[in-house]
């Protein structure tokens, strides 16, 4: 039996739904991991579909009639750039096991049932409300036909059973974090999601605890205290797993924390190493292997010496964004936050290692290289945004790179082995910098845009939230492009001297933000990482602050803070499909294959976080920010799922079988 042939058959059936799942051969390799479930469903669905209920005949017919598939993307599918993704090892293609879907942070899925030809038929298949208010920033995970969704504070974790109609709750885990945390998070009591490893779901509670939960039972496996929430330190980032280590970091760039990243043992929770973002070389875990590319980052104990005496202790450099990993180089990549306080005149110097991208050995935590994107940051330009790992040719030479859209509005292509900047070009409107010095790797600062205490400075672009904030971009190996939801904003800013008072902010920036030239607050762009140029952009009146999903169907997905969820042609930038949701979108779209082999797209709607903190209502005419929300929306072609329409009667059957004591339909 040809393994490839049966795989291809499976793929074809799966793509076009040419065979319903109960008619698909058990031998389909593509869906091997679903097989046990398939067995459970086989009899049930046959029973429901073709058995006693006559209304099921239409359902049977639908299964047999293939959905017309038009795949214009299959012609003219050349890459724009030749860039490839260094994503291995991926999650299984039908699952979504980590926030970024892979080590390379591509947020790219090989699923292509939903494509440019049929995305216009996407409809809501099912929804789920988690009952909290607060920015819904995390991507759901899908593992073994279970969906896991985490809420903003109080950081509750739900497991939804995708094998049962109605996707019922399997279990909910309530960690009961300290309420103090809620008032210490600068940008809403958010979480950016959960990681899955070794049968455990691992995530950070806002009150500085990391917790691991058994994925099957919902029971806590371990919990470790990582910091003291009363100092203003919180944790909002999504952990990132490399082997048997889970990497976590802190938040609090506006609270004068001492920023760090740490590795914990996946099975025990024990801390294995911690690297601070300021302080001595040993505290920063800088040793003999440390080889920064640029001179101004070479020297001893720069994490102390690039600050006024003692200021590094409350200098922040928190680690609240994304981490990526290159298994060949055995390096992790992440960025540090802005320095504290946000008043630069109070901390003369480069303020290393804030606003810096680090490469570290995950086994030891030792730094390999660092690159400070914004030395002596004056505008709150953190370097925490995602680093997408790609391989591409620059000047004819194949380079292993990372693509990084910084808060400072520069889009970087950086050699990820050495930290050398290969390309740096603004991806959105900015005026703080008059150019980029490729020799030093430092943007040239426009002196007119340097804030000083008690002086009102107008029209500084981008504002504190940057040209792009934490919302992660995505990349496609089919187009070789990177896709990002970016800002088009400026600010008026007045600095105010501040003192460090534990428990309170260490901030000092008084701002008003408004649209940059063009009048639009947001834009969704495609970016060429080889040339450092924008390929196309979709302008949005309101802020675009959602994650991006790229798919093999050549459709890329994003949302807006006024609640539009869109599917866009990855090549032309044409908007092919839009759906207005119940609240603004700052979540991260994902895609997965259900137990029925259908491709689904999922996104949370629930605006909050920095999106609400940072937009002045007066900034846009007629601006009226949507209320918060907490609904997960799951889409499929025509809204079909095994739990909608007539087949929900099968659901009663399933549930009564699951818990006979509660069902009223024991006998059919």
């Amino acid at each position, binding site marked *: 039996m040809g393994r490839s042939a049966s795989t291809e058959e499976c793929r074809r059936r799966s793509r076009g739904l040419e065979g319903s799942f109960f008619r698909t051969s058990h031998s389909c390799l593509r869906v091997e991991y679903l097989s046990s479930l398939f067995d459970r469903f086989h009899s049930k669905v046959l029973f429901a579909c073709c058995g006693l209920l006559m209304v099921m005949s239409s359902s049977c017919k639908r299964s047999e009639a293939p959905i017309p598939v038009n795949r214009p993307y299959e012609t003219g599918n050349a890459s724009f750039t030749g860039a490839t993704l260094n994503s291995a090892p991926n999650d299984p293609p039908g699952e979504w096991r980590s926030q970024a879907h892979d080590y390379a942070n591509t947020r790219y899925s090989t699923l292509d049932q939903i494509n440019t030809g049929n995305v216009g038929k996407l409809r809501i298949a099912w929804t789920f409300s988690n009952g909290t208010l607060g920015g819904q920033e995390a991507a759901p995970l899908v593992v073994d036909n279970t969906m896991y969704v985490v809420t903003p504070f109080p950081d509750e974790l739900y497991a939804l059973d995708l094998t049962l109609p109605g996707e019922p709750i399997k279990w909910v885990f309530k960690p009961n974090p300290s309420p103090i945390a809620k008032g*210490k998070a600068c940008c809403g009591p958010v979480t950016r999601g959960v990681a899955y490893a070794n049968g455990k779901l691992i995530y950070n509670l806002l009150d500085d605890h990391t917790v691991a939960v058994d994925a099957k039972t919902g029971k806590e496996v371990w919990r470790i205290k990582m910091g003291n929430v009363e100092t203003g330190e919180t944790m909002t980032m999504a952990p990132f797993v490399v082997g048997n280590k889970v990497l976590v970091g802190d938040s609090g760039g506006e609270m004068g924390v001492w920023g760090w990243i740490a590795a914990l043992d996946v099975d025990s929770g024990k801390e294995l190493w911690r690297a601070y973002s300021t302080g001595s070389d040993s505290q920063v875990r800088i040793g003999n292997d440390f080889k920064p590319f640029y001179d101004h980052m070479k020297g001893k104990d720069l994490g102390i010496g690039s600050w006024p005496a003692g200021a590094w202790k409350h200098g922040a450099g928190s680690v609240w964004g994304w981490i990526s990993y290159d298994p060949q180089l055995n390096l992790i990549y992440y960025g540090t936050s802005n320095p504290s306080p946000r008043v630069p005149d109070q901390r003369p110097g480069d303020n290393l290692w804030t606003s810096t991208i680090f490469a570290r050995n995950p086994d030891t935590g030792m730094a390999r290289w660092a690159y400070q994107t914004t030395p002596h940051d004056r505008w709150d330009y953190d370097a925490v945004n995602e680093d997408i790992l790609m391989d591409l040719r620059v000047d004819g030479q194949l380079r292993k790179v990372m693509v990084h859209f910084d808060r400072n509005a520069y889009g970087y292509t950086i050699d990820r082995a050495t930290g050398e900047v290969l390309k740096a070009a603004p991806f959105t409107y900015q005026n703080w910098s008059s150019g980029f010095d490729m020799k030093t790797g430092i943007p040239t600062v426009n002196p007119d845009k340097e804030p000083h205490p008690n002086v009102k400075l107008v029209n500084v672009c981008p504002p504190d939230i940057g040209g792009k904030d934490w919302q992660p971009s995505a990349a496609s190996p089919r187009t070789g492009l990177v896709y990002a939801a970016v800002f088009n904003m400026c600010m008026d800013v007045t600095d105010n001297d501040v003192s460090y008072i534990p428990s309170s902010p260490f*901030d000092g920036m008084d701002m008003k933000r408004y649209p940059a030239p063009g009048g639009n607050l947001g834009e969704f762009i495609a970016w060429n990482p080889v040339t450092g140029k924008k390929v196309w952009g979709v302008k949005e009146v309101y802020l675009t602050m959602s994650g991006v999903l790229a798919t093999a169907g050549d459709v890329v997905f994003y949302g807006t803070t006024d609640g539009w969820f869109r599917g866009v042609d990855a090549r032309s930038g044409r908007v092919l499909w839009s759906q207005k949701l119940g609240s603004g979108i700052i979540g991260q779209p994902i895609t997965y294959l259900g137990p029925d082999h259908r491709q689904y797209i999922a996104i949370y709607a629930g605006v909050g976080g920095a999106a609400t903190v940072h937009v002045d209502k007066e900034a846009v005419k007629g601006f009226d920010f949507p209320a918060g929300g907490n609904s997960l929306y799951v889409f499929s072609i025509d809204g079909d799922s095994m739990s909608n329409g007539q087949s929900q009667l099968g659901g009663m059957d399933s549930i009564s079988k699951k818990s006979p004591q509660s069902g009223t339909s024991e006998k059919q």
Partner: protein
Amino acid sequence: MDHCAARAGMGMLAFALLTPLSGCRAAQGGSSMTAQSTMNLPAESAAGAVPLGQLAGAPAETATSLSIANPYEHNPQAIQAGRQLYLQMNCAGCHAYNGKGNMGPDLTDTYWRYGGLPVQIYNTIHDGRPQGMPAWKRALPPDEIWKLVAYIQSLGGTVSVSNYEHARQGDRPGDLIAPEAQAEAQP
């Protein structure tokens, strides 16, 4: 002057320790900072006796401690000093430089989770609140907390002390009241 007289009356009625005369003088901007700091302040024990929630089974008069007035209300120098404290103590970091809220709640409106009367705001600053608001009782003397309250009152939100009896039930002066609800309000 009308306003000052009304406040003086309220002060005498509600709180013997507050000297109405000095309150009025302060409100007219006639006293020095030194004089202000020696101004008769509400006793700490009185503010401390104000319950956070409603009193179970208690008669209405026990709520009169809510009517404790801020001796610095409308005092321009105290308001200016309060603004300075608002910046120096990093209040602006949470509640924003314009007081309209950010990490912390909006201070310029009439929605107050823990009460918007002057003594309730005093207690919130003094004792802190569970969702991140620190307690300033060790860091700031009562005199400075009352000046902060005066600054917050000057932002246009809060609840007037003249409405102390009804503020907790969401009543505003001048609202319509159904006869049945009026009857229920009678002792």
